[in-house]
């Protein structure tokens, strides 16, 4: 044994083996796979999960809900929209009608104003009539009868002989004739004017010149 060399020793398995051990192992493994039952498998979550996952989710949800609270989403309700548009239509129609009524009132006011202007025109006409009356009075004074009746009155009125106006015509009064009229009236003395006034039936108009 002095010359014992481990390297020269034969490699041997000296343990006992059960018969057909490897065959039986193979059979067992394969049969286990064939009998694989999903229900017996443990339920596991095998996916990776980030840290603080649920805290982040909760924070984000609450944040988003607060944002939504500040800016609420307006959902259009067609019923309300229809009602609102009807109200708008009727409202605008009412406003339009009331506006046109006020326009009518304005028109009536305008008519009234125009009537007033007509009234003014009437006064103007009256004024013109007065002037024409005065002219007619003047002309009458120029008639023979009046001259006879008023013999004592000097016919200063003859001065404007040129203006042998025809007594019946009433012409539109121009500024020129007005000036002539005022000259003519100035030529009368107060007593003459008073006498003329007594003879005249239109005292109201003559009073204007007193």
């Amino acid at each position: 044994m002095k010359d014992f060399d481990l390297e020269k020793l034969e490699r041997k398995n000296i343990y006992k083996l059960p018969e057909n051990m490897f065959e039986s192992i193979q059979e067992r493994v394969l049969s286990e796979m064939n009998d694989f039952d999903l229900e017996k498998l443990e339920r596991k979550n095998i996916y990776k999960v980030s840290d603080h996952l649920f805290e982040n989710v909760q924070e984000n949800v609450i944040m988003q809900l607060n944002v939504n609270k500040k800016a609420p989403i307006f959902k259009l309700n067609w019923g309300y929209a229809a009602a609102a548009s009807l109200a708008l239509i009727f409202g605008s129609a009412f406003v339009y009608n009331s506006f046109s009524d006020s326009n009518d009132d304005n028109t009536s006011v305008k008519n009234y104003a125009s009537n007033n202007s007509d009234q003014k025109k009437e006064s103007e006409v009256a004024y013109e009539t007065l002037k024409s009356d005065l002219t007619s009075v003047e002309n009458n004074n120029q008639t023979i009868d009046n001259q006879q009746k008023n013999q004592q009155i000097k016919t200063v009125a003859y001065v404007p002989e040129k203006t042998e106006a025809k007594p019946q015509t009433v012409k539109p009064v121009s500024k020129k004739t007005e000036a002539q009229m005022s000259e003519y009236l100035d030529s009368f003395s107060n007593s003459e004017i008073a006498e003329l006034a007594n003879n005249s039936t239109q005292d109201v108009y003559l009073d204007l010149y007193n």
Partner: protein
Amino acid sequence: MKIKDAEIIALMQNPRTLEKGIRALMDAYQSRLYWHIRRIIVDGDLAQDTLQETFIKAYQNFHQFKNDSQLYTWLYRIATNEALQQINKLKKMQKTDEDPEYYMQNLVADNTHSDAEEIQVFLQKAIQSLPEKQKLVFMMRYYDDLPYEEISKIVDMSVGTLKTNYHYAKQKIEEYIKENYEK
């Protein structure tokens, strides 16, 4: 102490306690809803956004909640709809030549923990290979243990159809695992 649904509903119905109510609702259901959404969507960031959107929708539409159904059923319905919308958006954004199933399975591989059991990874990949309705039914029944009656209210399907769908889903998943796990 776990707050009851009735208390959450009472808080949410009062404008003064509305914020407290939504916080209580999130505390009670955030985990269940998140994992439900995550199993559908797989992507972590997108699942987080979808969970947020689910709670916001729940808050905005709380007046539509009727007490004749369970609160979690109503929340699951919102979450499922939101998640499916996100999946549809993803599919539209995807390249036309890329297989959606293959894309989702790759997403599973990218999103799993490094120490996750292989069989669990295969299970998730198998779920992603299912048609949409089978996928939803399987997940709500297998993971959340929801009764068929409640799942029926969430996905608008009859209980009989749900049972059939679950049976086929389970069968397909087992076959998928046997085929792929042996290789």
